[in-house]
């Protein structure tokens, strides 16, 4: 018996009365200090995009230095390291995590599970404002004495708090650590909301195994983040104590520039273990929402049920669980006990299996589909290409002995940009083209969208695919300038210049995208309530954009899973989740 044909008999009666929402009285409480998850989601998204733009500009500056060393005198080594550090931290935490969970999570969870709002709207509002404060503190470090920290986004002690590193003995590292702690506090308030809303506030008939994969993946990623972020939080606290009070959590006895410091007995490796206990799940905190959202994009735009829904749900959960026991694959050459290598290489390669299953199921959803090559579908295809590419190079780096020569080279940079930079960003783009009509009531401009897709897809691939080979030569990452080295042929410098030019072109395409977002707000084609003929609940709201409380007077009732596309015998090629089954009378 398939899930889709399961006849819905006897939806349980509502267990609780419909909730009374907080009613905003003024423009300020409606759009600024708003408790509406949709507004909070948009606030999160706009803030993340704004700080993400800063990180994008930083990437241009560092690429200019790498592509044309010596030409841009104003980029000193100190500034270069500050650029890479801030670029990495902003992109991973303040852009991707905030956008997927704070942005898409807030906007989509209540709508997709049929709730009126998040269960704790006030905490949800606080979550955004604390996030904004974290972003402002981070941005402030650009103007602090000594500038932002240049310790690399991994912030490894001892160097991150010593004088040889920009911001190590100035404000930079302190502002970074404070900002991260605030981010985690803010995230926890939002994260508890997402989890409790999914578990407790689903509408009648919305069983767990009827939820869209978008919700499953954001839910799982949130649970992971709630478990992983505390490890980062405590390492921030300890590093700050080491820096300010002279404790020795991470600081052994050492001699810096001829001076014996007062630290004694701490372990730099302890920080690395804590950092990656957070840091590896973090990769999947970003990747899982991308997996879920792209599943829904592919299914909707290929007009076909997602293939192997139950397997997809289990794969999400298994990946989430396994991602907590693979962290030390970031540390194969860190000097930890080498026997850990056996364990972590094995767990790391095991996680490739559920991940590969997800890829197969996306491909099998395309197979025998009715593929509409809309912009969301184009970005979904680009996601599969870049994600598979980056996932496969992960098999090099995860396989402990193969990692030894490649570790800390540009190969690693190319790998993680492909798999957790470019691929999830493509899903974000696809998702924005997909849901913008619901959020604003208008379609994004098609011509600008196609331009944005082609330049971003081909350009990003041309940036990061050749970069692997620079790493294979032995060129290390985090080098302000590789300069003359016997193992670097002159042609590699030309390749570096080419990559820089591509990066600037791809960057320009993002400006077109941002212009499109603004332009279509006024000039886009009217979308109507359900322009993609999608099944999920957010497209069935009485108003577009949905009003406060989402559903008007009557809550939706769910009779089927989210993937009733092209059901044989149905009048249309989709059946919304809240459409009742046809009774015996017809």
């Amino acid at each position, binding site marked *: 018996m398939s*899930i889709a044909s399961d006849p819905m008999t006897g939806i349980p009666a509502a267990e609780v009365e419909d909730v009374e929402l907080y009613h905003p009285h003024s423009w300020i409480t409606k759009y600024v200090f708003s408790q509406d998850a949709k507004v909070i989601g948009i606030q999160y998204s706009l803030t993340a995009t704004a700080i993400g733009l800063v990180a994008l500009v930083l990437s241009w500056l560092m690429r200019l230095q790498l592509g044309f060393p010596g030409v841009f005198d104003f980029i000193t*080594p100190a500034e270069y390291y500050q650029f890479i550090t801030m670029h990495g931290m902003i992109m991973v935490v303040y852009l991707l995590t905030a956008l997927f969970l704070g942005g898409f999570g807030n906007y989509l969870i209540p709508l997709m599970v049929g709730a009126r709002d998040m269960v704790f709207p006030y905490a949800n509002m606080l979550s955004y404002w604390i996030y904004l404060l974290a972003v402002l503190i981070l941005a402030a470090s650009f103007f602090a004495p000594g500038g932002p920290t240049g310790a690399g986004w991994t912030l*490894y002690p*001892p*160097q991150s708090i010593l004088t*040889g*590193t920009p911001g190590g003995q100035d404000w930079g590292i302190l502002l970074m650590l404070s900002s991260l702690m605030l981010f985690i506090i803010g995230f926890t308030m939002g994260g508890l909301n997402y989890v409790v809303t999914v578990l407790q506030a689903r509408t009648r008939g919305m069983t767990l195994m009827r939820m869209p994969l978008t919700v499953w993946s954001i839910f799982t990623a949130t649970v992971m983040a709630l478990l992983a972020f505390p490890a980062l939080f405590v390492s921030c606290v300890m590093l700050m104590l080491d820096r300010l009070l002279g404790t020795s959590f991470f600081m*052994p006895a*050492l*001699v*810096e520039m001829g001076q014996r410091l007062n630290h004694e007995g701490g372990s*730099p*490796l302890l920080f690395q273990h804590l950092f990656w206990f957070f840091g590896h799940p973090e990769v999947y905190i970003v990747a899982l929402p991308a997996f879920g959202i792209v599943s829904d994009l592919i299914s909707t735009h290929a007009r*076909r*049920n997602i*293939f192997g829904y139950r*397997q997809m749900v289990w794969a999400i959960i298994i990946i989430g669980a396994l991602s907590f026991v693979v962290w030390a694959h970031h540390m194969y050459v*860190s000097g930890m006990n*080498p*026997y850990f290598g056996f364990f972590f*290489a094995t767990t790391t*390669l*095991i996680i490739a*299996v559920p991940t590969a*299953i997800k890829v197969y199921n996306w*491909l*099998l959803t*395309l*197979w025998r*589909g009715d*593929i*509409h*090559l809309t912009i969301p579908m184009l970005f979904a*295809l680009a996601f*599969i290409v870049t994600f598979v590419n980056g996932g496969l*190079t992960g*098999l*090099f780096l995860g*396989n*402990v*002995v*193969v990692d*030894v*020569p490649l*570790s800390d*080279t540009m190969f690693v940079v190319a790998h993680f940009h492909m798999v957790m930079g470019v691929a999830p960003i493509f899903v974000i783009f696809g998702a924005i083209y997909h849901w913008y009509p619901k959020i604003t009531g208008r379609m994004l401009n098609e011509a600008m969208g196609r331009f944005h897709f082609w330049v971003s897809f081909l350009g990003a691939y041309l940036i990061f695919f*050749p970069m692997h*080979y620079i790493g*294979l*030569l*032995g060129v*290390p990452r*985090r080098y*302000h300038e590789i300069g003359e080295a*016997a193992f670097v042929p002159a042609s590699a410098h030309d*390749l570096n210049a080419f990559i820089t030019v591509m990066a600037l072109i791809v960057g320009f395409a993002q400006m077109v995208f941002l212009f499109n977002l603004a332009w279509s707000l006024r000039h886009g084609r009217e979308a109507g309530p359900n322009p993609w003929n999608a099944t999920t609940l957010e497209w069935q709201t009485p108003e577009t954009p949905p009003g406060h409380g989402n559903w008007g007077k009557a809550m939706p009732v769910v009779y089927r899973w989210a993937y009733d*596309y*092209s*059901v044989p015998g149905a009048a249309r*090629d989709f059946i919304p989740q809240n459409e009742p089954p046809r009774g015996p009378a017809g």
Partner: protein
Amino acid sequence: MPVAIALIAVAVGSILFHLLSPWWWTPIASNWTYIDDTLIVTFWITGVVFTAVVLFMSYCVLRFRHRPGHKAEHEPENKKLEWWLTIGTAVGVAAMLAPGLIVWQRFITVPPDATEIEIVGQQWQWSYRLPGRDGRLGTVNVRFVGPENPLGIDPADPSGQDDVIVEGGELQLPIGRPVHVRLRAVDVLHNFYVPEFRAKMDMVPGQVTSFWLTPTRTGTFEAICAELCGLGHAVMRARVVVAEPPDYEAWLEQQPTFVRRLAAAQ
């Protein structure tokens, strides 16, 4: 249609780039050809998978793109196919993991006849310590670090007296003899990396790490720091010379020992 062509171009272009581009690793100069072999096997397996996935996508886009009257097939699950794909993937992954773990076992098993040498990283230069006639390195502690004793050798330890100390210069290694490289850092993390040797390991203040190799090719190689260590990270470089044993012995004779250094300082 342009999408299907672009996907094919990505797959074919990636293969051509891999085969034809001039950017490939430098010829190996150590015994770690196993690492290269495992890497080549991984390239083959992943290359085939990547090409297959992308070509399959482009086929789907061509064959199943939306046309008037075309309808998707409704097929929620296919248990048998799902199981076969899972098992097939697990076998492929095991095929890459198993040789990788075997080579890792070799990588971390130091041969008993390996000569111990020491490389010490500090912002932003390398120092080396080689055992003197007794073939043993003396004990060290950061407490002893000073202008005359940059590596912190225990002055009371007899086996440290004849240790050869090379500060900031080049390191020589004899060809064909296994070397156990002990790594220490004085201040922050560093990583001594010679691309031609393939092997590398972080240096961590407060502990001793290590790797081993047997140089297999004479010549001069460049060593670079491969763990971010602050402002001078990119200039922290050195030369490693792999020499025939007689040349190596002659070089070693010229280097100052610890006891001679102390005497010169006083």
